[in-house]
């Protein structure tokens, strides 16, 4: 039985070697994405295009404008004393935020009266806007003189501390998600295509004429992709460590165990897709729709699940990458042991048994 399974696996590998473009697309893409995520993509807002309209012209006004620039987040692109120029600048997207200093600013401060700075910002990108507003509040709070209005208590100052990812680097946050993505896409799409290809070319009939049983065929077909996908995942971890300094804090053993569990689910998913699809085109589209998109959108990879509407949050429970992603982040970033993420593993296990069982039943029937 082992020999027959191995024979199928070797045949599969040979076939994979003959189609370098597909292999390249499947394995080049994750590497490109890793580099992109590591180097290019981040939510940390910097270089905010910023304008100052100073109606005041006193030293106090200049000081507050200066402290915005000195904070390092704001790049001054316009400085003037006419508010009307702001509209076209905002419309053309040349500035994202503007500070308007009222004419009475210097005098108010000198008299120690409360005064108000106007801060105009482009809200189209709500996330960036929220961050910019946060920066602006910090800057103003740091320059503003304080008065005690009552005889009551002093201010409360937060001492912030970030665990697991002290510099809040997005590479560190995204790498576990990327691993899940790579594994899901390669295993589902590659497996589905490999099985359907046989159907399409009619070689499935010749395989049926051999003494292979369904089970051996399935294992033989998936084994090469299991190896390739694990190789790709290990490669991604090494690259992440070398280039982006992402270390695995938890145990490598548990990381491998959870990964294998997830792989079983996604390979089973690929086989399931192959039993539904008759042509490679349909298999690819089904694979893409059922694995890549949900993994990208609904697993919490980029968009936090807790922010989704409740109905959608329920749907995320049928996305296997969701469980894997939580466990991965906990193992890689937080160094947590099984006592923390066991429920995710159980979720994957149930999923795996269901998917593989269904896939075997369907394959046996179709053979």
């Amino acid at each position: 039985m082992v020999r027959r399974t191995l024979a199928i696996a070797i045949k599969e590998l040979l076939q994979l070697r003959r189609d370098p473009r597909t292999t390249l697309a499947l394995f080049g893409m994750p590497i490109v994405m890793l580099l992109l995520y590591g180097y290019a993509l981040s939510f940390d807002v910097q270089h905010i295009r910023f304008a100052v309209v100073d109606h005041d012209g006193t030293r106090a006004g200049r000081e507050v404008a200066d402290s915005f620039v000195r904070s390092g987040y704001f790049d001054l692109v316009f400085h003037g004393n006419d508010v009307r120029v702001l509209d076209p600048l905002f419309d053309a997207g040349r500035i994202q935020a503007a500070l308007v200093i009222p004419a009475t600013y210097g005098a108010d401060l000198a008299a120690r009266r409360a005064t108000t700075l106007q801060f105009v910002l482009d809200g189209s990108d709500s996330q960036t806007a929220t961050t910019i507003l946060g920066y602006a509040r910090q800057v103003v709070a740091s320059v503003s003189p304080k008065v005690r209005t009552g005889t009551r208590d002093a201010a409360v100052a937060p001492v912030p501390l970030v665990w697991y990812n002290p510099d809040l680097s997005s590479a560190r946050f995204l790498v576990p998600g990327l691993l899940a993505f790579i594994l899901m896409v390669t295993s589902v799409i590659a497996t589905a295509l490999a099985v359907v290809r046989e159907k399409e070319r009619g070689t499935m009939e010749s395989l049926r004429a051999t003494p292979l049983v369904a089970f051996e065929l399935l294992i033989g077909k998936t084994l090469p992709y299991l190896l390739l996908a694990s190789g790709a995942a290990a490669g991604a971890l090494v690259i992440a460590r070398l280039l982006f300094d992402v270390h695995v804090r938890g145990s490598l053993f548990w990381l491998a165990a959870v990964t294998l569990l997830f792989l079983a689910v996604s390979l089973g998913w690929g086989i399931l897709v192959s039993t539904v699809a008759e042509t490679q085109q349909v298999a690819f589209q089904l694979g893409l729709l059922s694995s890549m998109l949900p993994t990208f959108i609904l697993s919490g990879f980029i968009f936090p699940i807790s922010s989704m509407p409740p109905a959608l949050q329920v749907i995320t429970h049928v996305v296997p990458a969701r469980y894997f992603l939580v466990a991965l982040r906990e193992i890689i970033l937080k160094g947590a042991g099984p006592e923390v993420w066991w429920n995710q593993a159980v979720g994957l296990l149930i999923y795996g048994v269901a998917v593989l069982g269904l896939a075997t039943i369907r394959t046996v029937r179709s053979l």
Partner: protein
Amino acid sequence: MRTLLNILIKELLQLKRDPKILPILFMAPVIQLTLLGYAATTDIKRVELAVCDLDRTAASRQVVDRFTSSKYFRVTATVDSQEQFTPLLQSGKARVALTIPAGFEAERSAGRPARVQLVADGADAMSGTIGLAYAATVLQDASVAAGTLPLVNLRPTVLYNPDLVSRNYMVPGILGLIIMIMTMMLTAMAVVRESELGTMEQLLVTPLTPGQLIVGKLVPYALVGLVEVFTVLPVVLFWFKVPLRGSFLTLLLLTLPYMLCTLGLGLFISTLAQTQQQAMMLSAFVFILPQMLLSGFAFPIQNMPAFFRAVTYLVPLRYYLVILRGVFLKGVGLSVLWPQALALLVMGMAILGLARLRFRRRLG
């Protein structure tokens, strides 16, 4: 002209005959849009908070109340010691943990600034950062209420999207994404299908010039793109209630140069791929994903390092996103958006020219 019309009709007939094409054309974009529209929200609502009050005085309870009653936080755990934070943060039951140290009230009534500690879960960088920002706001309000008033106040005015709804920003972008996926993939596959089936040879012996062949192949998919716009737009406007402040005609007009680019890219992919499968993989992985990531769709371009910022200038979707968001949210027209339109036009011509060159070489 007649020959051109013939190939157009042939192409449309072929589209009609494919039974799977109609659901792909009409259902897939709407499903994608609805799913993405709901899921692709970056608003962090109600960050999970764990509280450890070591002071247990009226003042500390007041601070905790401020967090509990704020719309930004959901208190998921109250613990007695900081050690108990670890499992909560590890399992994601809490994203931010607040500690009020013993002696908090004493410090405050002595007039010294009292400190509270906030621990954020950086593994979920987005929730972590925003959680800290929310906490700072809550604490600032607490200070003001307690009688410490900063002299300078900030009055924010938010333009274009006053309620800061991320959907208003993301959903028009998805429209651009869908147009790209549909027109580019379908064009690439339609051309490759002819070579795969061997019918390309038959077309070559007809009196069609390569130029006519290309136009005949592209125009039906340009129509498909326009149909997409009309299918998806009602969902954008009436389901997601994204305001369309500019003119619909401007939007439609500026979609044309964008489609020139996506159709050209589709043709270009068809010259690289030998089979439909390769065409799909190439367009999905080599063209669509990087464009999606480098266009400013989800990740702001200004946050990228200089090299990648330079690369984004080669991404058509980048310009179209500015157009979409400009027309939808800012209500601007051609007078503001002409540089983007021009860039798309030039790029579209260049891509089409290049694709045509390669296409001809492959035919000859």
